[in-house]
């Protein structure tokens, strides 16, 4: 187990190093932030001086080596546009994005598994058909359009919920969260729903397909023949067996929900990392872009690790031996 985790972490370090190099080369190829941010009234000497002051006049390899040296000391550089450490800037926005992603994932799981079970157990009933049809819509409607429709309906027309932004935050274990107040929850409902919709459909379909398959298995027939109650057959025997693929997908999707919450965050002006990265790319704020991607990659690595560990808990056949990385 320990060897497995150590090997995983070593691989991750390589991925992180490669990632930073890729971003460096990419941003360098596009241009430099001074061209975008400098005042129109600045003259040629001002521009040259500014580029030199930021070290952007040096060759790419020198800039990268300086970055690596500082990064190894734990310093990812200061944001060009914000003038505060890039990592701090990204981590400051992380709670907002995590809150949104967790709320969306929670909604998707809590609604998706029961709905999927229902649709799998009673595929020919009208609620079952309705659920499956609804899930097709959830898949196929583009997120930004659904978001706009949610805003138009619930904020503009009905006026029930705020159209955008995050509610007031309070500290929970030192992390600013907004879901502890009613106003905060009101702000969270629309963006979380928008972000949850796709995953909800995914979980509904996975659960329903898994259930229908499991119901035909011998162990379910045996359990029924043994005279177990329907609740126990479904709740224990079926559910536990279909949970492994669902957990894999939830894990993978959680990473992508964090990384791709960008659309939802933009539409709802949710002050998370997605909004930050868009702004930073627009002004080629390289330290922030690097820090953001490193954080995201690290999150993906952690989530995958957590998923692997969850497997071994759910299914004793999967042991995380040293030879199985």
């Amino acid at each position, binding site marked *: 187990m320990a060897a497995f985790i150590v090997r995983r972490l070593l691989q991750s370090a390589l991925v992180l190093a490669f990632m930073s190099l890729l971003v460096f080369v990419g941003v360098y190829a*596009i*241009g*430099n*932030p*001074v*061209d*975008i*941010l*400098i*005042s*129109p*009234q*600045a*003259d*040629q*000497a*001002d*521009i*040259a*001086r*500014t580029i030199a*002051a*930021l070290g952007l006049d040096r060759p790419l390899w020198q800039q990268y080596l300086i970055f690596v040296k500082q990064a190894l000391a734990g310093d990812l550089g*200061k*944001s*060009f*546009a*914000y*003038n*505060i450490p890039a990592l701090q*800037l990204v981590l*400051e*926005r992380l709670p907002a994005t995590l809150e949104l992603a967790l709320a969306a994932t929670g909604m998707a799981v809590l609604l998706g598994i029961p709905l999927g079970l229902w649709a799998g157990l009673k595929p020919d009933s009208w609620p079952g058909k309705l659920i499956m049809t609804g899930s097709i819509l959830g898949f196929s409607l583009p997120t930004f359009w659904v978001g*706009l429709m949610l*805003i*138009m309906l619930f*904020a*503009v027309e009905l*006026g029930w919920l*705020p*159209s*955008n*932004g*995050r509610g007031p935050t309070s500290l929970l274990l030192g992390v600013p969260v907004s879901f502890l107040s009613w106003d905060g929850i009101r702000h969270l409902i629309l963006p979380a729903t928008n972000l949850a919709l796709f995953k909800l459909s995914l979980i509904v379909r996975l659960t329903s397909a898994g259930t229908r398959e499991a119901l035909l298995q011998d162990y379910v027939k045996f359990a029924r023949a043994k005279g177990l109650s329907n609740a126990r057959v479904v709740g224990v025997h079926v559910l536990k067996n279909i949970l492994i693929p669902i957990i894999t997908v939830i894990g993978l999707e959680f990473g992508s929900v964090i990384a791709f919450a960008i659309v939802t965050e*933009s*539409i*709802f*002006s949710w*002050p998370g990392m997605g*909004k*930050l990265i868009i*702004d930073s*790319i*627009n*002004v*080629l704020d390289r330290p922030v872009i690097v820090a953001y991607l490193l954080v995201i990659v690290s999150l993906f690595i952690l989530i995958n690790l957590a998923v692997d560990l969850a497997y071994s808990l759910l299914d004793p056949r999967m042991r995380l031996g040293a030879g199985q990385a």
Partner: protein
Amino acid sequence: MVVRWARCLICAVLALAALPAAAAELRIGLAADVTSLDPHFLNVAPNNDAAWHIFDALVHVDANARLIPGLAVSWRAIDPTTWEFKLRRGVKFHDGSDFTATDVVFSLQRPATLAASPGPFTGFVKAIVSTKIIDPWTLRFKTAAPYAMLPYDLDSIFIVSKKAASGASTEDFDSGKAAIGTGPYKLVRFARGDRIELARNDAYWGWPKGKPAPWDKVTLRILPADTARIAALLAGDVDAIENIPTADLTRLKSNPNFRLEQKVSWRTLLLHMDQYREHPPHLTDKSGKPLAHNPFKDARVRLAISKAINRRAIVERVMEGNAIAAGNLVSPPVFGHVAALKAESYDPEAAKKLLAAAGYPDGFAVTLDAPNDRYVNDEQLAQAIAQMLARVGIQAKVETMPASVYFAKARAGEFSFALLGWGSFSGDLALRALVATPDAAKGYGAWNWGHYSNPQVDALLTRDFATLDDGKREAVAREAASLALKDVPVILLHHQLASWAMKNSLAYDARTDEYTFARDFRPR
């Protein structure tokens, strides 16, 4: 039990209902992210907009982009290289301390200490070689040569409190510790990427007629996505928004619950043409073979292009009426605008004749480059121009890209025909940046992508910047503009209109410099 719950609920509802009456709040949706509240760190419009709420400068700019007294009540040149500024007396910082000349000196020196800025303010103080405090309310600035633009430059340097900002970092300004100004609002909270909460400064010297605005609380919400900003206004989550996309203007105009305020902006859209290389990139005959000469070097070709563009159609169709055709580098309210210079009239027949006379009866082929996220409808604008040029035989291929890519390429000289939008306080500043012969030593022509060069214009500009009397200077600036524009150094297109939308109960003094200031909103 139930009764007790109900009583609690009623108490809570009453408490909530009582709040709004006590605290009147104005909520404004801004269109771009404010990255920092350090007023000396990054010179970009969104940051300056926020800083103007908290801080003042010596010189202010009115709604027509003309200089007016700010923290300085008057200024004059006492000799050709010395400016004397008289400061406003009795002004207090938000912490109650007095504003004096030492705060000014400190504020003028602070930009140079922030080395890590990609958009520094240092350019605005470089003309000052020495500063002398005569008394706490009088300052003298020495310049190396006669320099008329000092009052303009000092409009861009915010005055911070020396006591609060000594040794302060950008973080200290963002946290509010050092953000102590003399402006109309005090900083309450800055939530990066989300909102800025402000409280009214009742002691502000500049309230119109000495009467503070009716809102004791102002919240600036950061809403960069156009749809989010408009939805927030429609849903009543904000009271006013800036920067309305042209497509939504028509809809908002017909909605009785909202009002629009518009004003011609200082931003002028124009096309640069390469006039310095014999074989600029992407400029060929129609079969793709290189041309013998660069057609843009011929003033007749440049005039032909100008005549081929139907500005009225651009204003009416592309801009949906939210622009005015341009015949000047600066828009009508701005210093140095020449009323006699009219927008070139649309005349495709004359354009064809001019092209034939210049030796291009069949036209030529060129790539028109434009950004697609910088100016109002920039991509559609480039497409429309390409179609208009096709009618006179010039085959223009449109290439658009995000601003982050566009400006680096432009500076590297990769374009020969390119769109640029420009805002200036004054006509001579626009001439210096856009059409003066590029000269790094003098700081001329920094944005003259086409390298148009006219020694007479350069000489006039040099005289202009050394003319300390505003009236005389404006005459020189107009002469220089008239002389340069005769050559068609750039193709002038239009001046944008800046727009604000707000609840029906509000009014706003729309500004040519496009800034959104909470202090200029008032109930109707």
